[in-house]
């Protein structure tokens, strides 16, 4: 299934996030991540939704349904080739420090804290794929807890 990102700008009014999440449930869209932050303009929020969908007609429907909300000012799909998609994660890992040094330079990560002998809290940022491969390489069996932010995206 193709992964897609929709970027929407909307008025920062109560209930907007509720409406969007209800829409996702009602129309049974296959949503992976949803991130909301304030935009450059006060009173306007920026929302990035990523979803798995091969059918372009369905993606168009998501966009049209979003645009239908009175509060939504604009919504469009981001071209994967022409935009940056990034997320961050905080991971509590049961590994020793030497195990992590092997990844230096290859991944954009930082050790935030060393807890006990072999527990590290690591912060990593990058594309979803980068974070996934980092976790694969570190060894997913070593993950104690993970917090991912979801995708923020921007056109080039």
């Amino acid at each position, binding site marked *: 299934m193709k992964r897609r990102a929709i970027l929407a700008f909307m*008025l920062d009014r109560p*209930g907007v996030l509720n409406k969007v999440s209800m829409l996702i449930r009602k129309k049974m869209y296959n949503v992976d991540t949803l991130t909301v932050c304030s935009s450059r303009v006060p009173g306007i929020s920026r929302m990035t939704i990523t979803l798995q969908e091969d059918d372009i007609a369905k993606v*168009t*429907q998501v966009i049209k349904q979003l645009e*239908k909300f009175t509060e939504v*000012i604009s919504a469009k799909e981001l071209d994967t080739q022409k935009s940056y998609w990034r997320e961050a994660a905080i991971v509590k890992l049961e590994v020793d420090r030497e195990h992590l040094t092997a990844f230096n330079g290859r991944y954009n990560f930082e050790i935030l804290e060393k807890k006990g002998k072999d527990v590290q809290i690591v912060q990593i940022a990058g594309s979803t794929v980068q974070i996934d491969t980092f976790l694969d390489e570190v060894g997913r069996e070593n993950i104690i807890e993970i917090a991912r932010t979801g995708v923020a995206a921007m056109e080039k």
Partner: protein
Amino acid sequence: MTGKEKLLAALKEKGIKYIFGYTGGTIMPVFDEMDKTKDFQFIMSRHEQGATFMAQGLSRASLSTDNPQLGACMATSGPGAMNLTTGVADAHMDSVPMLIVTGQVATGVIATDAFQESDVVGVMMPICKQTYMPLHADEIESTIHEAHYVATTGRGGPVLVDIPKDVQNESVSPQYRFDVKGYRPVLPGYLYHPTPDREPLDRAIKMINKSVRPLIFCGHGVINSNAGKLLQQFAEKVNIPIAFTMHGLSALPSDHPLSLGMMGMHGTVEANKAVMEADLLIAFGMRFDDRVTGKLNEYAANADVIHVEIDPSEIDKNVATSVAINADVLRTLRVLVDDPLLTYKPRRRWFKQIDEHRKVMKKELQAEIDTGVGDTGTLLMKTIVDRLSKLTKGKDLIVPDVGQHQMMAARFYSYQTENSWFSSGGAGTMGCSLPMAIGVKLARPQERVWSISGDGGFQMNIQELGTVMEHNIDIKMLLFNNGYLGMVRQWQTLFFDGRYSGTPMQNPDYGFIAQAYKIPYLKVEEVKDIAPALKKAIKQKGPILIEFVCDPTEVILPMIPSGGGFNDMIVTRPPKEKSASKKKRKVSKS
């Protein structure tokens, strides 16, 4: 000035005269104020759901006329507001503008599970076009103005304003100003694009001129934008037949030579066959509901689709379009009617083909109508509707409930008056007819209004007879009593081997009910008595209830089974039921 005063001032400013509803703890301050102003006629429904359908009736019947009135209803918090939901969801499905004002518990106790507190905004959000909860008296006036704008522009819909009790009583701040005349809503994200773009119009015109077997679809949007006459002009100009969605009925006369009648699940053979054979569909103000299309992957496989629709999210939703025109139907038709490039074509072969389809079932249906009684020896609904149509010359306002009788009213009444069909379509809410007829009558008091219900639906809002009695609302209520939930029974006959689970119903004595509400009542059991009873209703000043003892084995055909394609259309009657001749069904005696 307080919030409640500002609320009522704004409602008055927006031309609202009728308020339907039911009072209660958290809306009392507004009711108290309303009584002082004398600006509104309050119509008390006997259940909040009734108020929503009365408001719908007012909106549906008046918004496209010279005297548009937005249906408004009011209820208290908690159960009052929750009782509104069915009628609100119904309005949302059918794009009916409506304003709902609910009282809410005071801001100080919101979210504490206070007495009669419920999350009204949360519940209403998915079934409203927009929801508001003003938290200061200063916000109320602008909220009502914005709500009115949102409800009545573009694709209409219900809008909720939930006002906490303390905000109703709060005084506006000393620096409060509101410029009523200069007010313009600030809605940067609101989609409202009434004027058609030239580029798709040009493509549409080329496509229409090229088409050999074109077909026009007339949807609810034609009525909502008051474009029936223009659609007729357009169809005559290019000589293209017209099929109607259920809510498109009455946009132009049913017996117009170009009319093929209703399409879809219970549509006419000619309309549905024409859809299958068409090479171009020109759809005005509709949303390709599943009751219209049947199985989507078989739907109009050989046709290009031109879709004129005010709501862009409906375009390409169910049916892929060749040309999408996101605009108001009226404005689009104005351009099309005057376009010199669009030409008349005789289309003899196409009309010959259609005339062949018109013959299918015609004789059988006419024979049934003429006989007037079904296999059980009781009356046929189609005969009653046919007689009503003839007696009223198709000019009256028809408000059917939901079910078999609704389809009979859709098929066998010949609508001559523009915007004279009012019913629940998308949601299919049983019980809508009686309260909706009240709203329709208030909107158009000079016209005759017929509420047509089955025994199932009639009892769902039967309490509104109280409202009819109290205000002596002159509606003619026709009750088609067949002792069953007829439409479900029909499905059981056709698809469940005649197992009538949950559909038979013991009925009360409707004569006594009418008497209790001081409403004149007639009971008709013989074909010969149909017309005299209807004539009596026409003469009668004020409301009347006529109960017709109807045949439970009657079916409405043709029928495309749910989820089926147009090729699956059932055109032959199921065999006579064994039980039909054996026992004559018991009906209430009076």
